[in-house]
């Protein structure tokens, strides 16, 4: 097992730098530059995971981000653990710990493997069909399905790493640093464009950088040597920024792209401290050049998924770039010339090629001749019909293809091997292009989708545009670049190119077998275990749209998003349903191209930076005085102030009683405040509130209700007339921003003729509300010069005053039903004024109260809270607030909607008071309200919106909305709870002081 398959020093790997790492508990060695996959292969390990559904043993299949099988969990059980990491992408570092996923107890012996033998019972849609009934069993099924679902384990402790976001603006963004991307970046930068080149791998040059043979030459040098010189030049260009290990995740409209830059994932853990792990780049580019290359296609035949089966190009890459042999007896299976490139590379490095099986019958090219020269047996016009070896391939069966390629003929032949490279040609990586809104066209010659129309200022060049060979790339890319960048010439005009690659290909989506399809396991999606049989079943069951087949069979839905097999799924559908590929289209490619970590997505917006926190200028006082806080939008509001170990209920009872018996003080600074000025200010208020405003005297305040155009209550608050053309409006805390937005909208779009100016002053003024029978005395002490007599300063009026030298506004308004004064003062003086009030109120036992007590006090008085007692379905009439709706006004926002056939219904839900038969019983907010428990189904009449125990009334009180509640005064209703029924009586929503004696006292 521990064989060393390292063949020769190579381009990327530094053999002087040995690195140890752990895989499934065993320590192995690799070299600097290795990926986990190349290091495992060098140790002769192919089996790395189990498939999702059948738990079949799976090995490394590719050498890139398209890998479906070799996905591992890193550092399991630690804070840095990460699931679904592609072994083909992660670079090894000292101390790396990786383990297999989706297997138990181990990758070599996996209990779930039984699914493989049960597979005839687990066709596509198995879960949909089986677990549908009886419905009551779902809870039992769910446990087992959840247990077997999902890949890998998520961390259960906080992520210690740092992530960040960064904006980048550039003239030209080049995606992909293969040969096409490199010449594009060089051309753009040299012509004065500020250019950014991003590459997902750690090195530049793509596959050309290891294309080191005499069959591929540029200007008489091996293409690898030529490109290396280019790269050295490119690195010196000043206005070109190069970012490696940077993968573009999303290509949105208007050339806005998201990319993940990986900064520390290749470093040993101890070197990562205090460094940013990953950066999400938000790139806005004037022009985008996509050079994302292409992905080799597998071939679809029976048992094409065994460990040891790789893409032919991956075998080449492991040999050339990492100096690793994937096996000692390699077979290559192909329908095109690519496998011969691999064969020549292997021969060069002394790795044995057992045989080449080629679908094509009559073939002839320089590459094939060279291979034949080396005495490698080529089976022309043959196909593989089966493979053998459970945890590692050990042989293949081949048969001759019929002339039309539809069936196999003749007898079977077995060839032994320990590695099989497959090549079904190439698929352009058009994912990012289509994400941006680009439309594809189908090229029949080689059965590929290529870019057709571009939605923004961008082009695709190189093999992602269907130019696969060196000569096609070097002739077409410069032409496209000249046009795209609007430049006269490039330095690639008179270049000499030699490519031995012959483009002939014999495309058969599903290779024929001597068995019927139903007896084969020909995998199309390797990660999700979707087979050709599943796709055919979906078609038989009537699915036609590619999007439906995808969801039914789960083809292309794994972490790899079907980068390998999607085209074959399409091809098999097309052949089976006799429809054209061009008409089928592809499934939608969605971002991200490769998975992103949550850390990258949220960046620095974690912990206390998760959301903006707004604090009032008196906040520190609340903290010092032991307040509990509640979140109201982004605001932190004092909720209640527990003393001597009180719980919330006890604190609120004490605070409520103090506020009514003597004095309470509330920080109301969070209320929205909008300064309204202009000669049409009164007219404007007339139009936005339901009541009339023209006759409000200067120095008076008025409560207003604001509706949406559909007649539903939207916000409420008190507005004060400061001067002839000057008002200050208050809104609810949560509604402040949207009310301002709505007012601006009407002013700018419907009534631009009005002379009105709106300014948000919420943060500029703090509001201190002192209420209770002793409030007057306290305010008098704080502001000695103000006349507070009821005659001079009655309820709902306002005065300008001063505290010391500081100007303030004092309003006599009340949300509690008590006599109450609000001091509005410039925010930075608020804390000292608050403390002054506390000092002045000491002799009256002034009690700070929080939002919970405020809610209780207003409920006693039957005042609504917009958003708690209302939702977007309550009109003022529903709230029994007919008094506030002006009958005289010609129009206001929402007026017409108040007499639509629906809003005048008598049986709408209406706000009522609810009194429990048992005065100690407190209703639950949100509880349903019914009248008749014997009716089936039970009719839900409404629900409880606010509920408290009132210490002042010494009983439970509640507000609720009830169908036709207005006409149900005194009627008995039922609140059914889980284990009991609570009997209530419908009452008026005002429980305390209907005559407003306390307000005017």
């Amino acid at each position: 097992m521990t064989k060393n398959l390292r063949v020769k020093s190579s381009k990327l790997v530094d053999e002087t730098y040995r690195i140890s790492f752990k895989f499934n508990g065993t320590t192995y060695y690799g070299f600097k530059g290795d990926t986990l996959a190349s290091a495992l292969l060098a140790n002769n390990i192919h089996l790395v995971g189990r498939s999702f559904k059948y738990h079949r043993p799976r090995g490394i299949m590719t050498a890139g981000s398209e890998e479906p099988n070799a996905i591992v969990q890193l550092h399991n059980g630690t804070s840095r653990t990460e699931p679904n990491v592609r072994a083909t992408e992660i670079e090894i570092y000292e101390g790396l710990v990786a383990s297999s996923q989706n297997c138990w107890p181990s990758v070599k012996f996996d209990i779930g493997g039984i699914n493989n033998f049960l597979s005839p019972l687990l066709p596509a849609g198995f879960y949909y069909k089986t677990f549908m009934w009886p419905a009551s069993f779902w809870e039992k099924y769910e446990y087992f399905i959840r247990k077997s679902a999902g890949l890998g384990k998520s961390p259960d402790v906080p992520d210690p790493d740092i992530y960040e976001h960064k904006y980048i603006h550039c003239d030209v963004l080049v995606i992909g640093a293969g040969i096409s991307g490199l010449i594009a970046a060089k051309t753009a930068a040299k012509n004065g464009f500020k250019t950014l080149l991003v590459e997902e791998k750690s090195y530049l040059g793509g596959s050309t950088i290891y294309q080191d043979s005499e069959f591929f030459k540029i200007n008489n040098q091996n293409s690898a040597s030529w490109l290396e010189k280019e790269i050295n030049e490119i690195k010196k260009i000043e206005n070109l920024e190069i970012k490696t290990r940077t993968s573009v995740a999303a290509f949105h409209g208007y050339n806005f792209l998201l990319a993940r830059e990986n900064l520390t994932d290749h470093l040993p853990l101890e070197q990562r401290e205090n460094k940013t792990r990953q950066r999400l780049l938000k790139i806005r580019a004037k022009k985008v050049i996509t050079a994302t290359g292409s992905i080799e296609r597998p071939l679809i035949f029976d048992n094409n998924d065994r460990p040891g089966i790789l893409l032919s190009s991956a075998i080449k890459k492991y040999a050339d770039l990492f100096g690793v042999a994937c096996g000692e007896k390699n077979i290559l299976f192909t329908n095109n010339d690519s496998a011969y490139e691999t064969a020549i590379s292997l021969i060069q490095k002394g790795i044995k090629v057992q045989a080449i099986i080629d679908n094509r019958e009559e073939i002839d090219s320089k590459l094939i001749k060279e291979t034949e020269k080396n005495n490698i047996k080529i089976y022309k016009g043959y196909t593989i019909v089966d493979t053998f070896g459970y945890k590692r391939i050990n042989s293949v069966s081949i048969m001759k293809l019929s002339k039309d390629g539809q069936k196999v003929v003749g007898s079977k032949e077995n060839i032994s091997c320990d590695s099989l490279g497959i090549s079904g040609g190439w698929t352009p990586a058009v994912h990012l292009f289509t994400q941006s809104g680009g439309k594809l066209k189908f090229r029949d010659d080689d059965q590929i989708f290529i870019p057709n129309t571009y939605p923004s200022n961008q082009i695709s060049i190189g093999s992602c545009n269907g130019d696969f060979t060196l000569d096609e790339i070097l002739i077409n890319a410069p032409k496209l670049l000249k046009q795209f960048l609007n430049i006269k010439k490039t330095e690639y005009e008179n270049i000499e190119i030699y490519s031995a690659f012959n483009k002939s290909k014999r495309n058969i989506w599903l290779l024929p077998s001597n068995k019927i399809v139903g007896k084969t396991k020909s995998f199309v999606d390797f990660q999700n275990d979707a087979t050709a049989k599943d796709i055919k079943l979906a078609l038989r069951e009537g699915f036609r749209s590619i999007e439906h087949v995808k969801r039914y069979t789960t083809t292309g839905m794994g972490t790899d998003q079907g980068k390998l097999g999607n085209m074959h799924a399409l091809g098999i559908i097309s052949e089976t349903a006799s429809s054209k590929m061009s008409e089928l289209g592809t499934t939608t490619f969605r971002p991200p191209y490769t998975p992103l970590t949550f850390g990258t997505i949220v960046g620095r917006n974690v912990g206390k930076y998760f959301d903006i926190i707004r604090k009032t200028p008196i906040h520190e006082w609340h903290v010092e005085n032991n307040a509990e806080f509640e979140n109201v939008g982004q605001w932190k509001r004092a909720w209640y102030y527990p003393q001597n170990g009180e719980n919330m209920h006890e604190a609120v009872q004490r605070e409520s009683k103090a506020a009514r018996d003597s004095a309470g003080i509330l920080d109301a600074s969070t209320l929205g405040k909008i300064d309204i000025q202009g000669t049409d200010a009164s007219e404007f208020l007339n139009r936005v509130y339901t009541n009339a405003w023209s006759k409000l005297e200067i120095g008076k305040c008025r409560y207003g209700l604001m509706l949406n155009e559909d007649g539903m209550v939207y916000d409420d608050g008190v507005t004060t007339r400061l001067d002839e053309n000057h008002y200050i409006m208050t809104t609810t805390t949560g509604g402040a921003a949207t009310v301002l937005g709505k007012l601006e909208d009407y002013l700018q779009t419907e009534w631009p003729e009005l002379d009105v100016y709106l300014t948000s002053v919420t943060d500029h003024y703090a509001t201190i509300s002192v209420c209770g029978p002793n409030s007057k005395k306290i305010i008098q002490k704080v502001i000695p010069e103000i006349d507070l007599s009821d005659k001079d300063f009655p309820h709902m009026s306002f005065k300008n005053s001063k505290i010391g030298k500081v100007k303030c506004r004092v309003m006599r308004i009340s949300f509690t039903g008590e006599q109450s004064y609000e001091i509005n003062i410039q925010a930075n003086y608020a804390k000292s004024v608050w403390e002054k009030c506390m000092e002045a109120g000491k002799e009256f036992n002034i009690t700070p109260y929080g939002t919970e007590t405020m809610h209780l006090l207003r409920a006693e008085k039957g005042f609504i809270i917009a958003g708690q007692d209302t939702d977007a379905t309550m009109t003022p009439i529903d709230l029994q607030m007919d008094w506030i709706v002006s009958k005289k006004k010609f129009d206001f926002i929402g007026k017409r909607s108040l007499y639509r056939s629906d809003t005048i219904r008598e049986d709408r839900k209406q706000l009522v008071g609810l009194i429990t038969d048992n005065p100690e019983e407190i209703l639950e907010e949100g509880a349903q309200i019914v009248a008749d428990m014997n009716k089936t189904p039970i009719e839900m009449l409404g629900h409880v919106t606010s509920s408290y125990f009132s210490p002042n009334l010494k009983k439970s009180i509640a507000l609720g909305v009830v169908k036709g509640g207005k006409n149900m005064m005194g009627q008995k209703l039922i609140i059914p709870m889980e284990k009991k029924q609570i009997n209530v009586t419908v009452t008026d929503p005002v429980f305390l002081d209907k005559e407003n004696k306390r307000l005017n006292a």
Partner: protein
Amino acid sequence: MFLINCPFCGEREQSEFKAGGEAHIVRPKQPTELSDDQWAEYLFMRKNIKGIQFERWNHIHGCRKWFNMVRDTSNDEIKAVYKMGEKPPVK
């Protein structure tokens, strides 16, 4: 993410803006004279076109001005932006 050319500020990221639904729906001058159906037409009925659509946008995290936009909803191409009260510059 769109790049929107605010008529007052110039090109800005879409994240600075808020979409405000269909444009050129005029609030009736005399709502009281409308039937329920006519009022409902103004209040609720909105087009949802694949193709050229006239929309209201607000530069909410910028100058806070409302303006109109002509956008092709099939490919998100912004054909034009223009101020409130102005006639659309394209058909």
